[in-house]
C-alpha cells in the first residue's frame, strides 16, 4: 500500500473511480427500463476493470492485469450481452417497471452507504486513506446490490442485483488486498459464469411456469398456508 502514497495522482484516480462505481450503483436503483439497467451494470463492470488495471499498474502486480481482463470480459461484455439477448427474447425491452417508492429506496441506499462507512471503521487505523474508502465503497456496492434485489420484482433485475453484489466483492478484493490468490480468483470467475448460465436457464423455467418473469408471482410455497 505504501506505493499508493508515492503516487498521489494514482490514488486520486482510484478514489475517483470508486466514487463513480458507487454512483453507478445508485443509478441502477433508479433505472426503470431493463435494458438501461443492464447498460449501467456493464458500465460498472468496465469501471471496476479500469480500477483493477490501475491498481495493477501502480502497485506493479502483474496478475491483477489478468483479473482486470477477466472482469472486463465477464462483467462488462459477456454477462450484459447474455442479459440483453434474453430481454430481447422475452420481448421485454420496452417494458417499464414501476418502481415502488423511488425516493425512499434512494434514501435507504444513501443510509446503507453511510452504514458501510461505519462498519469499516475498525479498519480505519490499519490502512491508507484509499483503502479505507474503497473498502467502504465496495461494501456499499454489495449492500446496494441487495437493495436492488429486494426492491425489484423482475427476475432479470434481481440477477443484475446479484451480479452487482459480485462486483462489490471483486472490488473489495482488489482494493483491500490487491486481489485474491490466482486460483481463488479463477474459481470465483468460473462460479460467476456458471451462475449466469444457470440464471439464463431459470428464466425459461420461470417463464414457462408462471408465464412471466415477475417473481412476485412465485408465491406458492408459503409457510402460512402450508
Amino acid at each position, binding site marked *: 500500500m505504501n506505493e499508493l502514497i508515492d503516487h498521489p495522482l494514482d490514488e486520486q484516480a482510484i478514489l475517483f473511480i470508486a466514487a463513480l462505481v458507487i454512483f453507478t450503483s445508485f443509478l441502477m436503483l433508479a433505472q426503470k427500463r431493463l435494458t438501461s439497467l443492464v447498460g449501467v451494470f456493464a458500465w460498472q463492470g468496465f469501471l471496476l476493470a479500469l480500477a483493477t488495471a490501475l491498481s495493477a499498474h501502480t502497485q506493479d502486480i502483474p496478475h491483477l492485469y489478468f483479473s482486470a481482463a477477466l472482469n472486463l470480459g465477464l462483467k462488462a461484455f459477456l454477462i450484459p450481452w447474455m442479459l440483453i439477448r434474453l430481454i430481447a427474447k422475452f420481448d421485454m425491452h420496452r417494458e417499464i417497471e414501476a418502481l415502488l417508492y423511488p425516493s425512499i429506496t434512494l434514501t435507504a441506499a444513501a443510509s446503507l452507504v453511510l452504514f458501510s462507512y461505519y462498519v469499516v471503521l475498525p479498519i480505519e487505523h490499519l490502512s491508507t486513506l484509499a483503502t479505507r474508502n474503497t473498502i467502504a465503497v465496495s461494501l456499499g456496492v454489495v449492500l446496494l446490490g441487495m437493495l436492488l434485489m429486494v426492491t425489484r420484482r423482475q427476475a432479470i433485475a434481481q440477477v443484475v442485483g446479484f451480479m452487482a453484489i459480485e462486483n462489490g466483492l471483486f472490488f473489495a478484493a482488489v482494493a483491500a488486498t490487491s486481489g*485474491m490468490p490466482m486460483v481463488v480468483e479463477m474459481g470465483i470467475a468460473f462460479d460467476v459464469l456458471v451462475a449466469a448460465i*444457470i440464471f439464463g436457464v431459470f428464466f425459461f423455467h420461470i417463464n414457462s411456469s408462471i408465464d412471466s418473469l415477475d417473481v412476485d408471482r412465485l408465491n406458492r410455497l408459503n409457510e402460512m398456508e402450508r
Partner: protein
Amino acid sequence: MTALYLLIAIPLAGMVLQARLGDSRAAGPWNVRINSLAFLAALWLAIDIFNDGPSSTNGGEFRVDAFNVYLVLLTAFVGLTTSIFSAPYMENERLHGRVTAKRLRLYHSMYQGFMLAMYLVLTTNNMGFLWVAMEGATLATVLLVSLYRTPESIEAAWKYFILCGVGIAQALFGTVLLYFAAGQTGDNAAASLQWSVLFEHARELNPQVMSLAFVFLLVGYGTKIGLVPLHNWLPDAHSEGPTPMSAILSGLLLNDALYAVIRCKMLVDGATGTNMAGYLMMGFGLLSFLVAALFLHRQKDIKRLYSYSSIEHMGIMTFAFGVGGPLATFAALMHMTVHSLTKSAIFVTVGHAAQVAGTQQLEHIRGLIRTQPAIGWGLLIGTIAIAGFPPFGVFTSEFLVLTATMQLYPWLTPLLLLGIVIAFSGLFHHIQPVVYGPAPAGQTPVEANLWPVVTHLVLVLWLGLAVPGVLSQWFEQATKTIAGSLPL
C-alpha cells in the same frame, strides 16, 4: 496423498461419465459403483491419516487432519448409501414419467458434481477455494431442486439460488477481510489464504478485522447451514427436489457448511482471544433450534417436517460449537455424525413412503406399517432416533451437549430441554398416525431397498452404545484443535 487425489478424480470422472450415460438404465448402478470407488478412496485416506497423522499436499493446497477426515469418510459413506437408494427410486420416477431422459442425465451427473464439491470443501486448505467449492455445491444442486419442473419446485429452486447466492456472497466478503487481516501481518507466509498458515499466525491477525470478518462469514455460511432467520430456502428446497437430493443436502451440505464456519471460528478465536465468535454462534444456534422446533408442529408436508428437524439439529450443533470447551465440542462433532446418518436414513424412508402413498401430504399418508412394514418401521425407528431417545447416538450427543451447557451456562439448560420436548412432540404428533392407523385404499407397496436405512440406523445405535476407538481418537484430536485455540 494418492488417496486424496483419487477421491477428487473419481467424482470428477463420474460427472463426465454420467453426463453421457446418465439416462440409460445402467446409470443408477453406475452411480453406486462410482460412489463405492470414492468411498474406498476415502477409506484409504482415513487409514493413511490414522497411521501417519495430519498430512497435506506439496503446495499445501489440500490438507487433511482429524477434524475433516471423519467428515470425508461420512460424506463418502452417506453419498454411497444414498446412491444405493437413488437407483431404484429414480427408476420408479422414470417409470411414472416424472423425469425425462435429459433431466435424468443432469441428475446423475450433478450428483457426482455435488459429491466433488463436498470433497473439495472438506479437504481444501485454502479459505478462498473453500468458498468457491461451497458456491459450486449450490450451483450443482440448484437445477436438481427444480428437476420435476413443477411451479413449486421452480419457485423453491429460485429461492434457493437467490438466498444462498446472496448469503454466500457475504461469506466471500468475510474471506476478503480475512485475507486483508492476513496481509496486514506483514508476514509473507501468512499472506496466503491457507488455513494452516493462518492458524499458526492466528495471534498476529488483527482482532477487530477478524471479528468483523467472522460476522460476515457466519451470516454467509450460516445461510447454507439453515440458521434462522436465514433458513427460508431450506424447507422448500428439501421438499420440492427429488428425495435422494434431500437426503444428501440434509446429511452432507449442512454439515459441510458448519465445518466451514468452525474453521473460521478457530482462526477468529486465536486472533481475538475471546469467545465473541462463540457467543454469536450460541445465539444463532439457540434461535434456530427453538424456532424450528415450534415450526415442526404446523407442517403438512412430510419432507418439510423433516427439513425443519434438520434446522433444529443444525441449531443444536451450532450452539454446542459456540459453547466451546472440550465436552461441548466433542458432543457437537458426534452430533454431526449421528444426525447426518439418521437424517439421511429418514429421508430415504420418507422417499419410499411418499411413493407408497403417492403424495407428500402428511394427512394422506396413513398406516405405513400395514401397507409396507419395512418402510413403516424404518420411519418409526428413524424418528425415535432423531428425537433423541436412548439408546441411539443422538441421545448420547444431545445428553453431552446438555451436560456441557449445565456446566458453563446453567441458565440456558431449561431452554434446551424445552426445545427438545417441543420438537419431540411435534414429530410424534405427525408421525404416529402416518405409521400406525388404518391404511387407506390405494396405497401399494413399492420396490424398495432398505439396506441403507438399516445400515445407518445400526451405526447410529452402535455410536449410541459405544464410540469405536478410531472415531473417538479422531473426535478427541479434533476437539483438541478446535477447543484448544480458545483459552478457557
